[in-house]
């Protein structure tokens, strides 16, 4: 059986509104009237409203000044085309799991699902899985199917499932031309001609149609009905993950920033899955609304991987002590990732591996105290006690040889002491080393008691200058 192409279209109703609201926490503006406006030919026009604003009489296409006169309590936000494009890319990223032919066309996303049917068994299961994935985005989305890509967005807008070309033509014939999403001037030209439905248009002879109405419109209709192929520019997830978000409402509150960051992390999670990568570090730049110096957050992971809630907690810990004095207008999130990632395999018998929580704990501690303050201690191959240890990364200390007995505590630097207050117990141990690196020393180490009964590790220096020093404590 020949594979039949089937395209799923996804559109976002009230796209300008949803693109902005998805970056705002909780129920912001749910009960309050809100209008999105755009500057068109020098006039500020309302392009989208929410329910509360419609109740007050704000209409799409109204001038902003008129809208404010009707509803003085109206909240307004500027339309953000970049945010709308990001919204479509977010949808495309989710859709990419179900097809390699994903395209952003106009104001919707289309994907070819006919080829993935066999993988999922039946078309219904595939579409259910796709719907579940789209639901997890937390957006209001409409989905439809059509046998041609050009009609998929139209079917999505009507929420119709059309599977064959004949069905599609039968469906479209009766549609008023207004619903075909034609360019505005084309539509008004057709209206002046008295054409209202697609069937009336199709009844015209092809040659006459092309001569009077232009080749462009004919091609458009042909593509809609599957009589001409639709060229598409396929979308692919980006090679590197870097996203800039303009916050609709600038804020300095960390919970609002975290909400927007969470949104990005959700996308990052999908991106990592699709690209088969593991996260090693995350950089977040915070740019203030007014020109000025921004701040940067770095979150490094001790083990490549991705857990959104843990990462979010790390970002929260980093964000809290930041003391933002200016409102943040935009965020840039950039991910460092490994090239290839093999997820941990589950055990065949017994429990699932509990693996990385120790690393997660270290990440959390590191986020609070800093990389240099979370360490382990390792011996160094040097006879001079002050050079025989170093701070190392946790879990990397290696021990190669047995060591002479040393006190439990070392002073970071030897401290001068008075020998007449101490009683020498045992010694000496001669340490003479370092002529090659300019820190030459010749010392006799002794164990001594002070008058409180503490056991000290002291030495007498001979080489640079003479004197007694405490270097460690037995205890």
């Amino acid at each position, binding site marked *: 059986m020949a594979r039949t192409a089937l395209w799923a279209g996804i559109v976002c109703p009230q796209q300008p509104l949803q693109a902005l609201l998805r970056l705002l926490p909780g129920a912001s503006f749910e009960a309050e009237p809100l209008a999105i406006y755009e500057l068109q030919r020098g006039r500020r026009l309302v392009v989208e409203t929410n329910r509360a604003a419609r109740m007050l009489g704000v209409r799409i296409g109204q001038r902003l000044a008129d809208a404010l006169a009707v509803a003085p309590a109206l909240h307004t936000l500027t339309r953000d085309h970049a945010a709308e494009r990001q919204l479509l890319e977010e949808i495309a990223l989710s859709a990419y799991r179900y097809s390699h032919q994903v395209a952003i066309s106009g104001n919707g996303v289309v994907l070819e699902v006919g080829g993935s049917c066999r993988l999922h068994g039946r078309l219904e299961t595939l579409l259910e899985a796709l719907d579940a994935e789209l639901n997890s985005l937390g957006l209001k989305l409409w989905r439809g199917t059509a046998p041609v890509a050009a009609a998929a967005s139209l079917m999505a807008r009507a929420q119709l499932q059309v599977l064959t070309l004949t069905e599609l033509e039968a469906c479209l014939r009766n549609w008023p031309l207004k619903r075909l999403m034609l360019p505005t001037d084309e539509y008004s030209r057709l209206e002046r001609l008295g054409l209202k439905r697609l069937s009336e248009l199709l009844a015209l002879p092809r040659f006459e149609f092309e001569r009077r109405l232009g080749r462009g419109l004919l091609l458009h209709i042909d593509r809609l009905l599957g009589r001409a192929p639709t060229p598409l520019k396929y979308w692919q997830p980006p090679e590197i993950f870097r996203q800039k978000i303009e916050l609709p409402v600038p804020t300095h509150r960390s919970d609002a920033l975290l909400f927007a960051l969470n949104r990005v992390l959700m996308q990052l999670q999908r991106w990592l899955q699709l690209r088969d990568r593991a996260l090693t570090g995350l950089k977040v730049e915070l740019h203030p609304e007014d020109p000025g110096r921004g701040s940067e957050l770095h979150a490094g992971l001790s083990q490549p991987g991705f857990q959104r809630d843990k990462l979010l907690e790390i970002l929260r810990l980093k964000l809290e002590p930041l003391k933002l004095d200016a409102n943040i207008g935009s965020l840039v999130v950039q991910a460092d990732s490994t090239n290839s990632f093999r997820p941990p395999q589950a055990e065949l018998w017994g429990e699932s591996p509990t693996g990385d929580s120790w690393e997660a704990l270290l990440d959390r501690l590191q986020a609070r105290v800093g990389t240099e303050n979370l360490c382990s201690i390792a011996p160094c191959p040097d006879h001079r006690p002050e050079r025989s*240890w170093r701070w190392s990364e946790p879990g990397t200390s290696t021990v190669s040889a*047995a060591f002479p007995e040393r006190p439990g*505590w070392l002073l970071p630097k030897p401290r001068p002491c008075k020998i007449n207050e101490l009683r020498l117990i045992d010694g000496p141990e001669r340490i003479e080393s370092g002529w090659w690196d300019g820190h030459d020393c010749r010392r006799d180490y002794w164990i001594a008691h002070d008058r409180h009964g503490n056991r000290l590790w002291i030495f007498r220096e001979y080489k640079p200058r003479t004197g007694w020093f405490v270097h460690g404590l037995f205890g």
Partner: protein
Amino acid sequence: MPASISSSDSLQQLLTERTDLWRGRQRCAAAAIPTGRAALDACLPDGGWPRGRLVELLPERPGSGELELLLPMLAEQTRQGRPVLFIAPPLVPCPQRLSNAGLDLTRLVVVRERKHALWCAEQALKSGLCGALVAWPEGRALNERALRRLQLSGEHGSAALFVCYPPGCAPPPSLASLRLGILPGGEIRVLRSRQGAAGSAIRLGASNVVTLEAYRRTTTV
């Protein structure tokens, strides 16, 4: 009657299972971690370091023996693959000494910041992954509330939990199940205990002593 017997049995079982019950001078069978020294095990009320409960150490002078006291147990924990955390130690713990005592340095994590010492301790305890945790917080950070939080997070896991007071710091009233004073020369004094065995003392001096003499003997052989 069989019914009454079974109910009293279950009551008895409950009483023995709950380690946070304090029944007069009677010892409850709390899980304990061996200290690594038989003499000390016999002296401590639980027969070892109590698991998941706070032990306060009051060294009289800095470095008078708290590390040596804990080392055998810490080494055993790392041998069993459990990490050991040092939080804000006042001096540098000597890796050669730790390694000689049998402590696996790959399992040792040192937090070098004092400001967040208690927070780090709490996080580590709540994860339930640590074998043992020793914290040297600032004296002024150690109030009753902080210690109670530490005690509560300790109950999440089975780690041995120690807090070392800076010398001269008066310990606040707390829920610690054990409070030990450490005197120079390796004398350990039980200052406070839930089981009421306070007042007993033990000298560990002999086993604590590491002499250069001994080292020289081992290297010549």
